[in-house]
């Protein structure tokens, strides 16, 4: 046999796809009969609906805060005037009108803190300290009662500050609790395991509304007479306990997915249980369930609207309150709903994008 030398072929970049609009359309939108039909159907729907929607929402819409003009435009144009007229009531609920700047600043501080906490650069021990300061500022501004600021009790808090407060605190409290419960469910200690299983199964067996009712109306019955815990606090604890039970199962899913060898390697190296969880197991497990956890966070943000049923008027509740108390504007609920839906969307969509960014960051650095 002849002597042959192996000549490796140098790697080349993959070919760049170059094609015009025509081939692209053909390949993606008109490749076969069903796809062509679907494309035409959607184009027809867009042609039918979009101009109508555009007319209703913009050209025919009433922006002035005039109920008469809105009545006149009814059926043909949207009444954004309801937002112009009621936005302070929708955003801040029954918070005293002249003091609403306090609620605005408090909300801005809270949202600002959440945004800052999302940036890796600020993941330092002092961030916790700043959170304490921010919370103090938030509650200081909301309660008032000093420096010439009128005292405002929690039953008059409402609108966006209440939504942001409930969502942020319940997320911040429920997340660590859920991790603890997830670890507890996998514990070798029967007592801890039983407690965690019972907790999760009990909470998952009842609707959030009933938890809120219990927190708000039944819990005080069991307290010694004369003692009272603020309804806001009780509701916050209720939401936290409820959501943590669901999230614990998500986290447990991540824990199950970690190969047994990781724990064995940690054991072999002499790491203690907590060291192994903290350094080895949880970082991998949590990274795996980021989408599920963010799902819970988003659900928590929107579920805060249920506290209306125990007379806490957060964003949705404040909107209903604002319109129901005024028969002139009551017919324009749809526009008001679209307004708060937009607010919810901004928050939830940001959370969703952040989750994608985290996922991307976690996956790019570890694999080839």
């Amino acid at each position, binding site marked *: 046999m002849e002597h042959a030398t192996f000549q490796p072929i140098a790697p080349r970049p993959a070919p760049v796809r170059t094609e015009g609009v025509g081939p692209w359309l053909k390949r993606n939108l008109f490749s076969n009969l069903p796809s062509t039909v679907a494309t035409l159907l959607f184009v027809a729907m867009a042609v039918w609906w979009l101009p109508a929607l555009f007319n209703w929402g913009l050209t025919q819409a009433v922006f002035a805060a005039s109920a008469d003009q809105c009545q006149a435009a009814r059926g043909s144009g949207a009444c954004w005037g309801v937002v112009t007229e009621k936005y302070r009531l929708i955003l801040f609920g029954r918070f005293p009108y002249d003091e609403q700047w306090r609620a605005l600043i408090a909300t801005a501080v809270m949202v600002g803190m959440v945004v800052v906490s999302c940036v890796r650069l600020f993941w330092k021990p002092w961030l916790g300290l700043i959170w304490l300061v921010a919370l103090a500022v938030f509650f200081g501004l909301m309660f008032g009662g000093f420096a010439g600021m009128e005292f405002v009790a929690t039953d008059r808090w409402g609108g966006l500050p209440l939504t942001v407060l409930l969502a942020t605190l319940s997320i911040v409290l429920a997340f660590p609790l859920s991790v603890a419960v997830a670890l507890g469910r996998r514990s070798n200690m029967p007592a801890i395991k039983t407690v965690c299983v019972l907790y999760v199964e009990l909470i998952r067996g009842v609707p959030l509304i009933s938890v809120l009712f219990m927190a708000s109306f039944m819990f005080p019955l069991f307290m010694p007479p004369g003692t009272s815990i603020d309804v806001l606090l009780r509701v916050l604890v209720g939401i936290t306990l409820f959501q943590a039970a669901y999230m614990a199962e998500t986290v447990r899913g991540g824990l199950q997915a970690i*190969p047994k*060898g*990781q724990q*064995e*390697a940690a*054991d*072999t*190296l*002499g*790491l203690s249980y907590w*060291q192994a969880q903290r*350094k*080895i197991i949880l*970082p*991998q497990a949590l*990274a795996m369930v980021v989408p599920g956890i963010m799902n819970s966070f988003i659900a928590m943000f929107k579920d805060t609207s249920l506290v209306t049923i125990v007379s806490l008027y957060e964003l949705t509740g404040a909107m209903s309150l604002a319109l129901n108390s005024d028969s002139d504007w009551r017919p324009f609920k749809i526009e008001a709903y679209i307004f708060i839906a937009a607010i919810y969307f901004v928050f939830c969509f940001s959370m969703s994008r952040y989750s994608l960014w985290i996922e991307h960051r976690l996956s790019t*650095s*570890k*694999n*080839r």
Partner: protein
Amino acid sequence: MTEPIITFEKVNKWYGNDFHVLRDIDLSVAKGERIVICGPSGSGKSTLIRCINRLEEHQQGTLKVDGVELTDDVKAVEQVRKEVGMVFQQFNLFPHLTVLENLTLAPMWVGKLPKKEAEERALQQLNRVRIAEQAGKYPLQLSGGQQQRVAIARALCLTPKIMLFDEPTSALDPEMIKEVLDVMTELAGQGITMLCVTHEMGFAKAVADRVIFMDQGQIVEENTPHEFFDNPKSDRTKDFLSKILGH
């Protein structure tokens, strides 16, 4: 003769109620001894070495490692694990940490070394397994052979007296087996006590002081590699050797 570093006395273990995986194991390992354990799958050889650092618990008998008896006592387990390093078939590196972080984790958190010292020691061990240039990479960016060498270095960072190898080359591509065996051979020349579950008979012949053959939870035969391969005593051993050497 000096005190043995590991002694099994009538050690028994069951998985569940009716799988008797270790049966009356008696074994003593001298300090610095290099032992290769082989046998068919399910014979209990992995379980045997996993009992030594208590990844598995034995139910009967006495097992002493470096003078400490392994019991439910957490302190005893802790102390034994300080002396025993282990290398797994599936490497079990921590994929979310870089190679260097994999190596410094235990020295910093268990050995309480300052970061700088831990990193120095880690680089020393990475040099020993000839892979220092990969310190900044993540495990999944390395080949199987490189990962296994990192795993060996990680175990060595705690300066163990005993090293356990649980089929360290079984998950590797054929081209990478040699680089791992070379590192292990080098290690064997440095006086560390080694117990190695493997089917690499060339390695056994070159390195082992003693070869142990297990079947059905029992030690069937133990001998020097020379005697074991050339003059096996039991029929079961002959049968096994003919199967693994015959092809």
